[in-house]
């Protein structure tokens, strides 16, 4: 579908009048089209007025059930956002403690993998530790950058991962977390998405392996980092299939 055609779908999307396939396609388009996202939000807010006009008094019994179920339901932890490793300017949206906690978790993870490994003096373990250190070298490289940015994304298929990136080092590291195993003959493929230009493949990743790493460069101008499901060996067309499972926006 062409871009102008896509744009006419804002209305249908805003009120859930698209088929599942079209909805997924349009969502992908939304990640690249800020004006569409703005229009969608406005049209959803408009629809909300249509819906709110139907407000009725809910039965008291319903409230009791909702409160009881809520009290027995664990709340989701906050999603962390891309942030600089430097002091964060006052932002009205992201809860700051959440960012700190995420950064600490990443540092702790990489730190224990590298330093914890080397503490062993057994030769075999030392070798293993060296291999692990080599594996994590890009992580420590990016983590030491003054312009480190990190972000966590959740995949629609479950699991997700953490992006760590430095524009000065032109390097991005993605660490998978609980991404489900792929079906036979399929793989996850990472992409850098550019406004008004074709997405650039950024490496392959198998699901089911926690801490699987992927390193990419050539970040200049990239707006989003995305994961799609492709046939083994990566997308034959060089562009993502419709099966995009995660999109994270990069900081500007």
């Amino acid at each position, binding site marked *: 579908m062409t871009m102008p055609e896509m744009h006419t779908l804002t209305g249908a999307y805003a009120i859930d009048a698209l088929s599942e396939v079209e909805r997924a396609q349009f969502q992908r388009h939304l990640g690249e089209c800020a004006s569409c996202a703005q229009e969608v*939000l*406005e049209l959803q807010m408009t629809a909300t007025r249509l819906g709110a*006009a139907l407000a009725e008094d809910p039965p008291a019994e319903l409230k009791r059930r909702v409160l009881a179920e809520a009290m027995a339901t664990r*709340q989701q932890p*906050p999603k962390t956002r891309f942030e600089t490793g430097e002091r964060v300017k006052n932002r009205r949206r992201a809860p700051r403690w959440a960012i700190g906690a995420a950064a600490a978790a990443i540092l702790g993870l990489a730190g224990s993998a590298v330093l914890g490994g080397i503490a062993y003096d057994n030769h075999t373990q030392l070798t293993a530790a060296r291999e692990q250190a080599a594996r994590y070298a890009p992580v420590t490289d990016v983590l030491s950058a003054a312009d480190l940015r990190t972000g966590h994304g959740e995949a629609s298929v479950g699991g997700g991962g953490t992006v760590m990136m430095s524009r000065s080092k032109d390097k991005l590291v993605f660490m998978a977390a609980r991404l489900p195993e792929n079906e036979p003959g399929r793989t996850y493929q990472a992409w850098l998405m550019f406004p008004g230009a074709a997405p650039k493949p950024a490496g392959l990743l198998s699901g089911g392996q926690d801490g699987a790493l992927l390193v990419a460069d050539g970040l200049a101008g990239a707006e989003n980092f995305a994961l799609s499901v492709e046939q083994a060996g990566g997308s034959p067309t060089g562009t993502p299939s419709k099966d995009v499972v995660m999109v994270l926006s990069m900081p500007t």
Partner: protein
Amino acid sequence: MDESASPRRMAPVPGDGEPAGPTAEDLLVLVAKGDERAFDALYDQLAGPVLGLVRRVLRDSAQSEEVTQEVMVELWRTATRYSPERGSALNWAMTLAHRRAVDRVRSARASSERELKATFEAARARPFDEVAEAVAARWERSQVRRCLTSLTELQRESVLLAYYQGYTYREVSEVLRTPHGTIKTRLRDGLIRLRDCLGVTA
């Protein structure tokens, strides 16, 4: 900021003297910290509109209450994920509610394709009359009603069939015997005209 972005201004009928308590957005911030009392108050603000919308789409009372319960518990569960980018708290809740109601209606409908045609025929003349009927003395409703009359008939029918009946634009085009492409654009044009009439800005 428009009315729907600020429940404090939208919820009460002008001049009804209802005290302005915390907004739904304020409450969500507290709910995100696990505040059960705030959730109780949030429920009071959002459950009415959510139930009204869900019931319009699903019709069945028991199912409507089930979906409303799902939506409210989901707000509790994911309160930490709310951000003003999603619009007002009411908008967040209603978008989720509509999606859930539509999901349910479509999975039920998939099993009874045969009845589809009949449902379509029956639905054809109804939606606007029902809204007109539902319009009571409330200012919000009369606003919406007034603005609905500013749409062309095809725009209004398209928007109401899709939103209140949970139809896809293809289904709407079937009911209205109008090409798909026309319905797509009428949905957008109609919503844009409504947006401008209601003064909605994000």
